[in-house]
């Protein structure tokens, strides 16, 4: 390996893993050995070489205020953004209850909702519902503090495939839901209590045999953890 090639490899490696821009001085500092250390001009030439070679690749060498760094190409943003795409989280029970109360009791103030739920309604929940445009403020009640009156929107009806609010099941039917709830078991309604992985595994053999389901359990837990995080963020 020629000296030049080695210098080039060191620079490439360093710029890829540093996680921050590296200045010329920092790059020179990589070569502790005085003999091996390239001159500034030599270093710049190698960097130019590296830059040229980026053509046609998914990354480029950028010069920023504090030095040089590799950066993924701007044009790739639409794809790369998917790496961090969060799985749609779940709404909290509190949010769903709030939404349901608004749907059935609109127009309604936050105080009214709190009275029915028996607990405070967080501002985050209201903000989430307003941002999602499922709920809007339709007026203010003429009492001290002029509390906002909330109602559901057209988008709310559209999202739930309803023509009008009257298509929502009447209250007496809803009340029955409480009794039949255990049978419904739809996803996302009642999170199962978190299960310790394979707590029921007793012997070695079973552990190995069970490991497939083990992995999926772990996965689910991770999902739940994620969902939980987002939930709290939403609240």
């Amino acid at each position, binding site marked *: 390996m020629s000296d030049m090639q080695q210098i080039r490899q060191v620079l490439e*490696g360093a*710029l*890829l*893993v540093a*996680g921050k821009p590296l200045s010329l001085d920092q790059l020179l500092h990589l070569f502790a050995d005085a003999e091996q250390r390239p001159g500034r001009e030599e270093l710049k030439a190698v960097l130019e070489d590296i830059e040229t070679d980026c053509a046609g690749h998914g990354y480029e060498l950028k010069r920023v205020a504090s030095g040089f*760094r590799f*950066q*993924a*190409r*701007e044009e*790739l*943003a639409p794809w*790369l*953004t998917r790496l*961090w*795409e*969060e*799985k*749609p989280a779940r709404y909290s*029970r509190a949010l*769903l*209850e709030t*939404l*349901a*109360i608004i*749907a*059935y*009791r*609109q*127009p309604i103030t936050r105080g009214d909702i709190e009275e*029915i*739920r*028996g607990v405070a309604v967080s501002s985050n929940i209201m903000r989430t519902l307003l941002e*999602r445009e499922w709920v809007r403020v*339709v*007026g*203010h*009640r*003429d009492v001290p503090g*002029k509390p906002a009156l909330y*109602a559901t929107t057209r988008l709310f009806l559209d999202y*739930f*495939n*309803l023509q*009008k*609010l*009257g298509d*929502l*099941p*009447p*209250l007496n039917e*809803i*009340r*029955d*839901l*409480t009794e039949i*709830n255990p049978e*419904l078991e739809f996803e*996302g*309604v009642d999170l199962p209590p978190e299960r310790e992985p394979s707590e029921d595994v007793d012997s070695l053999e079973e552990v190995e045999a069970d490991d497939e389901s083990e992995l999926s359990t772990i996965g689910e837990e991770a999902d739940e953890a994620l969902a939980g995080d987002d939930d709290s963020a939403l609240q």
Partner: protein
Amino acid sequence: MSDQPGDNPPESGKIEQEEMPFAVVQGRAVTQLPKDLYIPPDALEVFLESFEGPLDLLLYFIRRQNLDILEIDVAAITEQYIKYIEAMQAMRFELAAEYLVMAAMLAEIKSRMLLPRQVQEDDEEADPRAQLILRLLEYERFKDAAEDIDQLPREGRDTWSAEIALPEMPKKVEPPEVDLRELLVAFSQVMHRADMFRSHQISLEPLSTRERMSIVLDRVRSGEMVPFAALFTPEEGRMGVAVTFLAVLELVRESLIQLSQTEMFGPIHVKARDS
């Protein structure tokens, strides 16, 4: 390998010859810790801490004699081990229980060796030396494996993952999906809960009225006066008109809107209350 280890007293020349010297002083090999030499307790501690337990210490003794584990003279090793333990105790050094258990086990092996050999009546009773050697062998495998693992290229020591900068990216968050049934269950549960905490039932107006209330409120939201008649849609028919009327009455009752009429039989106007 001697089968009669008891013949060799601890200080016998045989063992000394086999031992690797601790040090060479003025050309003479020193094989025993000089009794009058003061060893700082710290140094002993460091020495002991460099062993990962009694098995590790035994392996050290075996290695020091350049012996294959399978060739060891258990009795000789026992002597060394017990001498070591005694030295430690003489230094009033606190020994981990495991070292003492091992010492007891070794002592037991040695005493058994001293007894005349008998035809083994009880087949299930194992040769304790064999047991020990197996444990040593097994331990040594993992001791080696640990060294091998330590040699593996390691993230953050030998290799580093690339992590380059991102271009400007719009952050997009997918909103959660909700099933209507989830909403209904949530409502049923909250109503159920409300029932339990209340003596009176929450009475619900027919939904159509509540919905119409929202619609009317929305119409008057801008604060301007809306003609009363404009709230009605005749095409809806009698029911629709009745619902709107009920909604208006309810809104008035709840002080959400104001009705005003400037003159007798003049047009009625609707206005949001003070907002």
